[in-house]
């Protein structure tokens, strides 16, 4: 089975994240970069399916030069090869542009199954799976907490607030996964050493037959027009307990419509 896992490098959720003052895009230099947390689960699921069904796991990532670190980590976990799309003109691309670029890459690699995290911790749009499936003309299986396939049919549990739906489709397909699906492995030293020698193909927009006008901020359908920092936490209200502390606390909560 030809499995492609999409991986994105994001700023570490634990470090302070900022938007750039000039164009309201994410300041990717200001924070430590890590692999998007949910992508670890996508990689793990890809590797498990490969272990069960054979074939290859290819990592595809669109991002700046330093996204090579995220790709290296995915390879050290056990993926076979990678494609890195990187181009100055891509900076500021929204979901719509990203999906066009990735669809074009997937057209080159071919695939039986595309796996991705259900959202990234930076933009948190959660729409890429849908856009990709639409562009590729294949079924979209989203929010999977379990994946089973016999190589032609695919069944997932789609996680929901009330439990899960069992959804069935035909391969090829696009599957987005949630955290519940598995426990991602940590790379072993052997994996780390092997990753060095695995092929990584680097592609520019031109390599994909696209030009700068089709990418970046200008080509994006959405734009951040303004932003504000989260207001600093206001001073709390101190309730002095004179035997009626409970009632006063309840009053306060009621006034804020919490109860």
């Amino acid at each position, binding site marked *: 089975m030809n499995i492609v896992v999409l991986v994105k490098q994001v700023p570490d959720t634990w470090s302070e994240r900022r938007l750039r003052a000039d164009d309201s895009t994410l300041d990717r230099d200001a924070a430590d970069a890590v692999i998007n947390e949910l992508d670890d689960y996508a990689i793990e699921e890809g590797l498990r399916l490969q272990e069960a069904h054979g074939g290859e796991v290819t990592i595809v990532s669109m991002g700046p030069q330093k996204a090579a670190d995220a790709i*290296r*980590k995915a390879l*050290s976990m056990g993926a076979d090869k990678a494609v890195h799309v990187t181009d100055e003109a891509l900076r500021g691309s929204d979901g719509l542009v990203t999906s066009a670029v990735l669809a074009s890459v997937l057209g080159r690699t071919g695939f039986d199954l595309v796996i991705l995290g259900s959202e990234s911790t930076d933009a948190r749009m959660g729409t890429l799976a849908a856009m990709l499936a639409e562009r590729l003309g294949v079924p979209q299986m989203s929010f999977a907490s379990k994946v089973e396939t016999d190589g032609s049919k695919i069944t997932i549990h789609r996680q929901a607030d009330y439990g899960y739906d069992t959804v069935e489709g035909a391969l090829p397909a696009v599957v987005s996964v949630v955290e519940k699906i598995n426990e991602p*492995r*940590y*790379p*072993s*030293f*052997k*994996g*780390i*050493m092997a990753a*060095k020698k695995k092929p990584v193909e680097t592609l520019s927009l031109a390599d994909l037959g696209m030009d700068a006008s089709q990418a970046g901020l200008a080509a994006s359908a959405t734009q951040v027009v303004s932003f504000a920092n989260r207001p600093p936490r206001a001073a709390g209200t101190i309730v002095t307990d004179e035997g009626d502390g409970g009632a006063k606390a309840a009053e306060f909560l009621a006034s804020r419509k919490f109860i």
Partner: protein
Amino acid sequence: MVSFTLNEEQEALRRTVEEFAKGVVAPVIGRHYERGEFPYEIVTRMGKMGLFGLPFPAEYGGMDGDYFTFCLALHELARVDSSVAITLEAGVSLGAMPIYRFGSAEQKNRWLPELVLGERLAAFGLTEPGGGSDIPGGMRTTAQLDGDEWVISGSKAFITNSGTSITSVVTALAITGRTDGRPEISAIMVPSGTPGFIVGPEYSKVGWRCSDTRELAFSGCRVPAANLLGERGRGYAQFLQTLDEGRIAIAALAAGLAQGCVDECLRYAAERTAFGHQLGHYQATQFKIADMAARAHLARLAWYDAAARLVAGQPFKTEAAIAKLTCSNAAMDNARDATQIFGGYGFMNEFPVARFYRDAKVLEIGEGTSEVQRMVIARQLGLRAGPG
């Protein structure tokens, strides 16, 4: 030019183990520690990551790494917790390494694959109730050849990893005869569950509370003659190198603990306020943390140097003893200062620094006391022992 910069792969491994320690060990280890439980599920995951296979070749399922990378993993684990670090240290350097180094092809094929994957643990029994520093003087355990079997009698004290449910074998040093009145010492492998091999209950320890440490008794315990590990009569001599290496591993673990104290204090100094200021704004706190960082740095350089010499095939006996002495001092000093910075919370078991405080002391005792390290250094410098 001398350089102690990690290469790309070493740095990737360091970061992976750091993430593992923070993500998998840190959230649960306090609870295990309070109950004195061996953390089986953590050890299983360490095995899956290949940590037990780091210094072994792929032929036995190992990672093709070296002793330096193994020590690097210990350092990163010990920044978060020493019990899991010592479980790995003893499993590899005392358990599997002697079998890898001195075992016959048959012994290696039988024991190593499971040990290298961390599915099983092996232990090494040198210390006896009557003495650990004075080997062989304090040794009483004997093994006599009876036909094609060894019959072992005696006991061992403080043996790490000897009584877990995944322990497969203990290599015990025993007196197998006398030549010119001097004891002949050999190493004999005793599989867990062998009749006459009695594993005592877990000791109640001050620190390392999630690590498995037991007293062992051998009472007419019989194992095949083929269980001799390495050459007969070379039991102690052949393990001297193992002991020297183990000192570097303990040094790395101690340096990790010293660094863990710095990590915790930096966080706490920014969080905690007293008299209207963050603790970190007081020079008294800053100087303490600066001293701690300096000790952790020197400790790291000391074990890096010893491990680098080992890997390069150069003599490292003196440097290993210096590293163990330096690093365990740093661990003790930093644990004391970190606990002080945390105040009352530093005395509460649920805080990592309290664990560091309890775990630091044994670093001056296990795998050669600080006095023994000084003896080794002095001998290496050419100083000879006088009459009493």
